[in-house]
């Protein structure tokens, strides 16, 4: 005859085995399209900017920051000017209403001596525009309850994430578009709960960020 405590431990063990069986995963695909030669000097920098003109969504600044941070780490790291610092220093030229939509628009910007001077101060060689979002679809059922004797959760919550980001790279020396990289990632996160919820995140956006940063770094370095 099992005690209540033994039964509870058995349920938790079963939950752990079930959780391991679910094992969340993410799949990431990278596509690169090169339109020109690239390369960067040690004293040159790049800036990564998120597109925010659209009315239905805007590129998440956390994702932009993540890609920038990853590019600044590891072998062949590249110096990245933080997005907010750049936009504030260039105010109002890179606000959503005025930001250049095509590489050819940069000529109009660089005619302004004040813009050209600030670009030179930052030593920016490449401007990378990121555009995309993560779409989330939730299903399953998980409910929690608390009573005088304690509380607990039961059920299974499922979250499917679909991330898609396009990076467009402009060369500020030639004022031309030199390539595009697309990062697409999908994955399913699970949260089974037998008394205690066990989150099993798929880390879809983090994977897309890491892979895109590595690819961008190689692209800019010309390797």
């Amino acid at each position, binding site marked *: 005859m099992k005690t209540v405590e033994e039964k509870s431990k058995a349920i938790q063990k079963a939950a752990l085995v079930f959780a391991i069986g679910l094992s969340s995963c993410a799949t990431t695909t990278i596509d690169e399209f090169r339109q020109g030669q690239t390369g960067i000097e040690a004293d040159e920098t790049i800036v990564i900017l998120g597109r925010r003109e659209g009315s239905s*969504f805007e590129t*998440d600044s956390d994702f932009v920051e993540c890609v920038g941070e990853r590019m600044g780490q590891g072998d062949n790291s590249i110096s990245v000017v933080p997005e907010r610092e750049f936009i504030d*220093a260039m*105010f*109002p*030229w890179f*606000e959503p*209403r005025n930001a250049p939509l095509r590489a050819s628009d940069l000529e109009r910007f660089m005619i302004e001596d*004040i*813009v050209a001077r600030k670009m030179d101060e930052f030593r920016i060689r490449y401007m990378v525009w990121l555009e995309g979002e993560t779409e989330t679809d939730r299903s399953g059922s998980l409910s929690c309850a608390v009573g005088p004797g304690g509380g607990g959760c039961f059920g299974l919550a499922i979250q499917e994430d679909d991330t898609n980001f396009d990076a467009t790279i402009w060369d500020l020396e030639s004022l031309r578009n030199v390539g595009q990289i697309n990062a697409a990632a999908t994955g399913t996160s699970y949260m089974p709960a037998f008394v205690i919820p066990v989150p099993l995140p798929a880390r879809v956006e983090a994977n897309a960020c890491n892979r895109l940063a590595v690819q961008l770094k190689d692209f800019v370095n010309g390797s």
Partner: protein
Amino acid sequence: MKLREIDGLTFFKGLMIHIVAGLFVSCGTSNVVIQGSFPTPAINPIPLSVAVYYDDNLRNFSYMEYSETGREEINIESGSSHVQLFDAVLPAMFERVITVNSMEDPEIEGVDAVFAPAIEEFQLALPAKTKLEVYEVWIQYNMRLIDSEGDSLADWVMTSYGKTPRETFLSVEDGINGAAVVALRDLASSFALNFARIPEVRDWLGSL
């Protein structure tokens, strides 16, 4: 046993106070004072001496958002942030800028023009009402440029728009503030870069 009863009663009273307080909070009007930082524009100044006049309507501008049942829901105060924005933008746009407290201020005599902005309309869109994942703010302005004699040099309408995405731990107040700050930056960007392209302004600048 007596002690336990008292504890239970105290707990019950505390719970009731919190529930009643929560009801009052959820039924009351929340107040949002727009706060943000506005960088100095990187533009070449126009060689003009301009006085700026912020009337009381602009300085104390606030907008009340009503619930679907007509109850006062959110009061948004944006007057001081508008003054802060123009104070950051105008000195970068013109060679000399002074602030005057009335249109009769004697300092007006020595300037090329007096700039008097006014807010005509303020609109707010909340995710709870639009079912979209963004907070949105629209503001419509009436910009007026007057000469030292009080005659109109230019009078035009401008609109600005700002949005900020809804996030898990972002409060409604922070969402509104974020969207309003983006709208204010949008105003500054459009005003600073397009000022000399407004037909009446362009004609006036050409006549100087």
